[in-house]
């Protein structure tokens, strides 16, 4: 028969059930086949057409960041088997990916591919590399998200689509520009302009606090770029160290004075002040199994715990996180209270307000360093950038679990769970 110990642990098991908090404990366990992150960093995010990266083409941006990753992570480049580039807008992105990897000092044995699911491309790239590692396709890989909105125009939906799409109840909604989907969310769910401006102001204010305190110094890599003075035409070398999106001193009151960006689509509450900015930037994450990291002597800073995707009506694509976050939490057995930090892409304040309110999130946990409204939203970069920021913020707070999520154009939402092991 069982000993005292077994009978006691049986009773203790009844008293400490597998509640979500136990799932949290399970998530924090360290196993040799965990997919871990040993390096995560990004370039500064700068305003498209105006900021420090405006003259840096997408290939130069990727080469610059990959070179930094190779040097600073001290990884032997020959063990990196694949690099996945999350990018939305660049023409010939597959050429750019592979060529940039080679130009950044990786050997010819390092492969490359592209991931594109609009605003979730950066997270999709992480998922691709993590899945390849988990299933034994590769041992070590880099996920990178990069976008140069200065040099690659966003032309929206392609012209000349089949009438089977344009006349379809849902597929036809994909012709709606993103701004219109933001107004749809505000209109359908009665989200007021006041709430949107308040949400946007909080983003600016959080970014300002973070920037003044230097919280992001361990996530941003100083990036050397060539910069052309728009007045003189003189080209100089600049070292960028700061995001230039956050406008200090922004208040809900000051945002309320901005005119509607889309007067043609009621309720016309979206403005340049409460929507994400057009921005350039890149972020990268080095992934491998825990056993491999230990073998290579790589410092483990975090863990990829899983990700998921959902679809919804394209006309309200902004509320994708409202579906994606509960879905990934359910898969991991977590409750909202188990999560320490949420990084949710602020494509528009309308969807930001909706997701925070309807999911009942603690506003202090959501985008503690400001989101895309203040920092900018370089489409393909955002998914990776939010993970870099979340890991840095968990370190600063000495907390463990982050959920990152974003809405995706054409009506989707993606979410992922990451654990800091600082």
């Amino acid at each position, binding site marked *: *028969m*069982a000993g*005292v110990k077994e*009978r*006691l642990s*049986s*009773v203790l*098991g*009844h*008293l400490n*059930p*597998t*509640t*979500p908090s136990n*799932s949290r404990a399970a998530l924090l366990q360290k196993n040799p086949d965990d997919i871990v992150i040993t390096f995560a960093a990004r370039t500064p995010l700068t305003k498209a057409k105006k900021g420090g990266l405006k003259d840096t083409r997408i290939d130069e941006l990727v080469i610059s960041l990959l070179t930094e990753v190779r040097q600073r992570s001290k990884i032997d480049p020959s063990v990196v088997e694949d690099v996945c580039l999350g990018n939305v807008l660049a023409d010939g992105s597959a050429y750019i990916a592979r060529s940039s990897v080679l130009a950044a000092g990786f050997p010819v044995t390092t492969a490359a591919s592209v991931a594109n699911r609009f605003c979730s491309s950066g997270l999709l790239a992480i998922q691709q590399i993590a899945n390849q590692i988990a299933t034994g396709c590769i041992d070590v890989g880099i996920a990178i998200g990069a976008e140069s909105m200065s040099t690659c125009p966003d032309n929206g939906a392609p012209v000349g689509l089949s009438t089977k799409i344009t006349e379809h109840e849902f597929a036809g909604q994909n012709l709606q520009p993103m701004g219109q989907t933001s107004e749809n969310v505000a209109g359908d769910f009665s989200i007021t302009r006041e709430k949107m401006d308040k949400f946007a102001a909080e983003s600016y204010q959080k970014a300002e606090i973070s920037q003044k305190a230097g919280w992001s110094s361990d996530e941003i890599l100083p990036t050397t770029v060539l910069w052309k003075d728009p007045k003189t035409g003189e080209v100089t070398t600049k070292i960028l160290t700061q995001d230039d999106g956050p406008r200090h001193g922004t208040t809900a009151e000051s945002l309320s004075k901005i005119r509607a960006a889309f007067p043609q689509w009621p309720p016309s509450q979206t403005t340049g002040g409460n929507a994400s900015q057009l921005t350039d930037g890149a972020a990268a994450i080095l992934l491998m199994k825990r056993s491999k990291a230990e073998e290579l002597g790589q410092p483990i800073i975090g863990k990829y715990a899983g990700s998921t995707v959902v679809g919804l009506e394209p006309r309200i694509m902004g509320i994708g996180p*409202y*579906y994606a*976050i*509960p*879905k990934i939490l*359910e898969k991991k*057995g977590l409750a909202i209270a188990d999560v320490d930090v949420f990084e949710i892409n602020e494509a528009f304040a309308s969807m930001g307000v909706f997701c925070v309110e*309807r*999911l009942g999130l603690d506003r202090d946990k959501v985008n503690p360093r400001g989101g895309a409204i203040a920092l900018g939203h370089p489409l393909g970069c955002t998914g990776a950038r939010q993970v870099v920021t979340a890991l840095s913020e968990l370190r600063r707070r000495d907390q463990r679990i982050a959920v990152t999520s974003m809405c995706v154009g054409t009506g989707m939402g993606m979410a992922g769970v990451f654990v800091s092991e600082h």
Partner: protein
Amino acid sequence: MMEFRTQGMNGYAVKYSPFFDSKIAVGAAANFGLVGNGRVYVLNLTPRGILAQQTWDTQDAVYDIAWSEKNENQMIAATGDGSVKLFDVSVPAGPVQQWHEHNREVYAVTWNLQTKDTFASSSWDGTIRVYSPERPQAILTLPTHSCTYSTQYSPHSPAVISSVTSDSHLRIFDLRTPASASNHLVHLIPIHGQPPTQGPSYNPLRPRHPPSEALTHDWNKYRDTVVATAGVDQIIRTFDIRNPRSGPVALLEGHKYAVRRITWSPHLSDTLLSASYDMTCRVWSDGSTMGHPTPQAPGQLPVPGRQLGEMGGHTEFVTGVDWCLFGAEGWCASTAWDERLLVWDVRATMGP
């Protein structure tokens, strides 16, 4: 409220005699059932209080008891050493018969309520065994492959046995089915299964229930397809086995810790009593007499049951509770780790 002290013994199970309204059996164990002896009490309710008519000591803890439905003097006890013992009040010396079939602790025993000629036990070893008092060995083994905290004969059919296990499933066995690889298993119902959601759209905020150990269950005495289950996740659920894939019919939420024992009223079809590690006994209505259709229409949300009363007289984990079958509806007995057996009237705990 009447009280009896099971001095030095922590209660694990209590059962009213099916023959006498004043006779109660209690199963108990020393040292909270972790190590040491067990004891079976036969108690009489008298005008002078509750008096012990008979006690028997066992080598290992007694985790459950069941009265014989045929012989008013006999009962079986589930013990920690893997054996099931048959006691007879007229034989004070010790068990008149025992069966040592299980390899691990036996947690539950149940007597066939219809034919009254067999009984069953379930164990940590992942099996249910069926016995006849006339046979020296078990006559049937039903595997569950999971620690089986509770097994019950259906009160409506002599051939139907059910169980709940630590793998969070309700199993229904029908011994009339031919012997085959399924070992008479006819239903395997996930207790944590998602209740159906209302409406066509997916609600991301709907409640979610991860699997958790099931500790107790009971068949409704009036509605022959309704079974209630409960356990570590603190929720009491009712299921209608005519529609095993539809999820729970009612969810009764309120206990603060695991639910150790539930039992349907012998008098009212919607009423059940629960005992919990949160030191309370609670009485509930499953809502079935409140005008909700049954069985569930597709897409219908589970009915939120209602707590009718709470008894907080115990000062330790409450492990056993049972209704008196006779007399005024509402009398019951409970036993707990506080070494006390309490006899009380459910109606006194209910609000206006």
